[in-house]
């Protein structure tokens, strides 16, 4: 029998871990770019740096595919920004609740081409 709770807990934890790895990867990339632009690295060093980042990227993608957590990771990263925002802003302004939930309701007029 498939234990749904165990599976989604595992997915959630993995998703969180990989989201954090991605954030670290982004920081590493920025660092690497700065060093490369700084001009203090030799061509061989730049090549090694590039390869390492490339391999990291590939590994992350493989894990996401194999574990089926690409969507989980995406939503964890999106959610991280919004969590505190939500709690503070929504109880202070009822208007935000209504604005959030108003897709397709009569009050909303979308002007677009």
């Amino acid at each position: 029998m498939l234990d749904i709770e165990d599976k989604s807990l595992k997915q959630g934890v993995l998703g969180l871990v990989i989201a954090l790895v991605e954030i670290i990867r982004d920081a590493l990339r920025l660092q690497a770019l700065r060093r490369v632009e700084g001009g203090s690295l030799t061509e061989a060093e730049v090549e090694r740096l590039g390869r390492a980042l490339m391999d990291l990227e590939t590994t992350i993608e493989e894990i996401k595919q194999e574990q089926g957590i690409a969507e989980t990771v995406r939503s964890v990263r999106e959610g991280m920004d919004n969590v505190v925002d939500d709690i503070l802003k929504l109880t202070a302004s009822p208007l935000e609740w209504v604005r959030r939930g108003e897709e397709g309701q009569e009050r909303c007029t979308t002007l677009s081409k």
Partner: protein
Amino acid sequence: MHDVVQIGPSSSQRRPLTGLAGRYVYCVADAGVQASLGNVGLEHSEVYTIPWQDICAVVHNCPPQPYLSGDRDAVQAWVMTHQRTVEAAWATWGTVLPLAFDTIIVAAAGGGADQQVADWLSREYGSLKARIQRVKGAAEYGVQVFWDTASAAREVTLSSLDAGKLRAQASSASPGMAYMYRLQLEHLLRNAMEAKGAELSRGLYDRIRAHAAEVRVEKAKQAEPGLRMVLSLSCLVHPDRYAQLGQELDKIGREQGLRVRFTGPWPPYSFVRDC
């Protein structure tokens, strides 16, 4: 630190009008009347007014502590009820100053809760009246402008000279170096898009500001994939500028890569506090 009382939306008991030391205040209305809106408040409480001169507070009686719950649906239901009650007051009395969810005035020693509310109105009368005059007849509208990221990237790529050079270098380099060139390219494009986005939103802000009595800049949130929110505004608009605002937004919506979301009218939630 006060005691926390868990209240859920399923409890539909009617609260007795006497014996409750708190007054949950929904808004201040521009009318010096004593009236009841019926049992439209949180937990089906009766909503009524406490007047002071030519204004009144729209309240219901409650225990002297905030409405708190760990259940997100319960809180959402309360917040929606709060919103609907403010709108009912708006429809009834024309001009209201909405208060935030969970604003409760508590009876102090030596006076009942109703008196406490009247005293508060009397103390704040000057600034409340001033605010009422500023929002009188106006409504709040939300304006959000989105930028189609594909069209944004296209616009930015064309004008970036370094990008061309990097692409050329990337195609001839060894894998690791090519990857670094690619990262540089993405970095450049991201920065250029940020700059273009900022410039765009400044221009849009000026155009929209011209038609509103007051404007508040809201934090730009994540949009759906493929779209980037460049501007989010709360606008206080009087009826005589509404048509022009609509026309300006229409114009903006027809511009390359832009989409507009225009919501409202709302009671002036964002314009109650002096900035």
